[in-house]
C-alpha cells in the first residue's frame, strides 16, 4: 500500500513537471493568463460607469447591498478563474494530448488514468493561484478594491470545499471531452454557462424566475455568494453557515461522482477505440 502511494506520488510529480515545462515553454501564454481576466473585467467596469447615477451605482447597490461593484466583480473573477482552469486546463488538455497523438502512449504507461488527472489538477491549482494573485495585484492597482480582511480566514475555509468540488467536476468533464472529442466549443460554452449561472459577474437575483431556479440548484452559486458575503458584506441568499454546509456536501458528492464518471467513460472510450482519435 505504501509502495503504491509512493509510486502514485512520483507519477504525479512527473506529470506536474511535464505540465510545468510546457507552461514555461510558451511564456506569452503564461503572461496572458494573468492579463486575460483583466481584459474580461474592463468592459464590465466601463459598463458600470455607463449606468452610474452621479458616480454612484445605485442600481447595483439595490440588488446586492453594496455599490462597490469592482470588488464584487474581482472576487467573482478570481473564483471563476478556478472554474475556467478546470474547463481549459483539465478538459482541454486531454484534447490537446489527443490532437498531438500522445494520449494513447501516455495512457499505456502503468499509471492509473485518474493519477494522470490528479497530477494535472495539482499543477492547475498552483498555476491558477499564482495567476489569481497577479490578477488581484493588477486590479488593485488599476481599479482599486476594498475587502473586509477580518473575515479572510472564514472566506478561505469556504473557498477550499468549493475548489475541491470544482476539480471533482473537472474529472467528469475531462471524460466528456474524451467522448465528444471536439473540445473547443464544449469547453468554451461549459465554462461560460457555469460562470454565468452561478453569478460570477453579477448577482443571481437579476435572473428571471426559471433561470433563478437553475442557479439556486447549483452549489457553486452559494460559494460565490458566501465569499462575497464574508469579504464585502453583501446580502447573502441563505444564512452563511447553511451556504458553507452546502459546499461541504457538494465537495464530497462531486469528488466521488467525478471520479466515477471518469473511470466509467474512460473504459467506454477504450471499448469504442476512440482514445487516439481527434
Amino acid at each position, binding site marked *: 500500500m505504501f509502495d503504491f502511494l509512493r509510486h502514485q506520488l512520483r507519477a504525479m510529480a512527473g506529470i506536474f513537471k511535464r505540465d510545468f515545462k510546457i507552461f514555461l515553454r510558451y511564456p506569452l501564454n503564461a503572461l496572458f493568463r494573468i492579463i486575460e481576466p483583466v481584459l474580461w473585467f474592463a468592459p464590465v467596469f466601463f459598463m458600470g460607469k455607463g*449606468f452610474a447615477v452621479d458616480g454612484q451605482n445605485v442600481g447595483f447597490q439595490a440588488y446586492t447591498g453594496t455599490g462597490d461593484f469592482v470588488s464584487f466583480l474581482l472576487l467573482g473573477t478570481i473564483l471563476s478563474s478556478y472554474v475556467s482552469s478546470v474547463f481549459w486546463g483539465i478538459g482541454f488538455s486531454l484534447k490537446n494530448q489527443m490532437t*498531438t497523438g500522445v494520449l494513447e502512449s501516455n495512457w499505456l504507461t502503468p499509471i492509473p488514468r485518474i493519477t494522470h488527472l490528479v497530477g494535472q489538477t495539482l499543477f492547475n491549482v498552483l498555476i491558477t493561484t499564482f495567476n489569481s494573485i497577479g490578477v488581484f495585484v493588477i486590479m488593485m492597482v488599476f481599479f482599486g478594491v476594498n475587502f473586509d480582511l477580518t473575515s479572510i480566514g472564514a472566506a478561505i475555509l469556504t473557498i477550499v470545499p468549493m475548489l475541491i468540488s470544482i476539480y471533482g467536476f473537472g474529472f467528469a468533464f475531462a471524460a466528456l471531452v474524451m467522448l465528444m472529442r*471536439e473540445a473547443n466549443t464544449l469547453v468554451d460554452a461549459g465554462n461560460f454557462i457555469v460562470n454565468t449561472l452561478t453569478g460570477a459577474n453579477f448577482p443571481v437575483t437579476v435572473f428571471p424566475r426559471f433561470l433563478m431556479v437553475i442557479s439556486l440548484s447549483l452549489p457553486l452559486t452559494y460559494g460565490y455568494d458566501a465569499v462575497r458575503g464574508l469579504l464585502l458584506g453583501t446580502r447573502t441568499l441563505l444564512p452563511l453557515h447553511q451556504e458553507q454546509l452546502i459546499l461541504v456536501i457538494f465537495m464530497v458528492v462531486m469528488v466521488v461522482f467525478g471520479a466515477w464518471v471518469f473511470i466509467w467513460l474512460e473504459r467506454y472510450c477504450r471499448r469504442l477505440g476512440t482514445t487516439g482519435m481527434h
Partner: protein
Amino acid sequence: MSERFLASEQSGLAADSQSERRVILQEYGLICKLRSLWAVIRKEVTIFIRYPSWVVAVVIWPVLFPLVYIFNGKAFAGPDNAGVSTFANLTGTGDYIGFMALGSLLYMWINMVLWSFGNFLRNEQLRGTLESTWLTPMPRIIMLIGAGIGDCLQQCAVFSISLLEFYLILNIRLVGDPLLVLAVILLTIPTIYGVGFLFASLVVWAKEVNVMVFLVRGMVMIFCGISYPLAVLPDWMQSISRFIPMTYAIRAFRNAYLTDGGLGAIKDDLLILAAFGIGLFTIGYFAFIMVEKSVRGKGNLGVY
C-alpha cells in the same frame, strides 16, 4: 477542357498554336484552382458539422453570449431601472438589451474568425498535416481563401439564427432598413477576413494561437464599445478606438438595425469601413504570401 488539353499535348503544338496552348493551360489552371477551392470549402464544412458541438456554436452560443452583458446591464440598471437614464443619455437609446446584443454579435463574429483562422493552419501544424498539404501543387492562398469562404458560410448561419433568436427571445426588433443592415455586414466582411488572413500568417510565424486571439479580441472588447457607450472611456482610450475598424462596424450595425436614421446616419462609418476593408485585405494577403515564403525558406513549417 482536360480532353482538349490532352489532345493538344498528344498532337504536339505548332509554333503558331502556342498562344492557344497558353490559353488552354490558363483555363485548365483556373478550373483546377476552383476545384481545389471547392475541396477546401467542403473539407472545412465537413469538419465543422462532423462534431455534434456545432449545434452549440450555431444555435446556443449566439444567444448565450450576450446574456452575460445583458444581466450585467440589468444589475447596473437596478430593480427600478434607476441607471437606465444615464445609459440613455450616453447612447441615445434606453434599449440596453438591443445595444449589447448587437454589439456582442459582431464581437462573436470576429472572435470566431480569429479562432478559426488561427487554428486552421495551427491545427494542421499540430496534427502534422500542414507540410504534406502544402506539398500539393495548389496555391497556398487558395487554402486560406477556401477556409475563409467555409467560415463565411458558417457565420451566415450564425448571424441568421442569432438575429432570429434575438427577435424571439430578447424581443429585439429590426427598426431600420434591412438593406442597410446587409450593407454594413457586407462591408465588414473584407475587414474581418483581412484581419483573419493577417492572423493566420502571424500564427504560422509565431506558432501561438491563444495569445494572439486574446490580444486582438481583448482590444476589440475594450476599445470598440461592444457593451457600453464609448463616451465613458477616457479620452486616450477613445483616440485608440478610432483606429480600430470594429468600432465603426459595431456603431453602423447598431444604427442600421435599431434606428431609422437611414443611410445618412451610417454613411461615414460605411466609407471608413470600406477603406479599412481594402487596406486590411491587401495587407492580409501579402502578409500570408511573405510568411509562406519565409517559413519555406527556414524549413520550420512542420515545427510546433
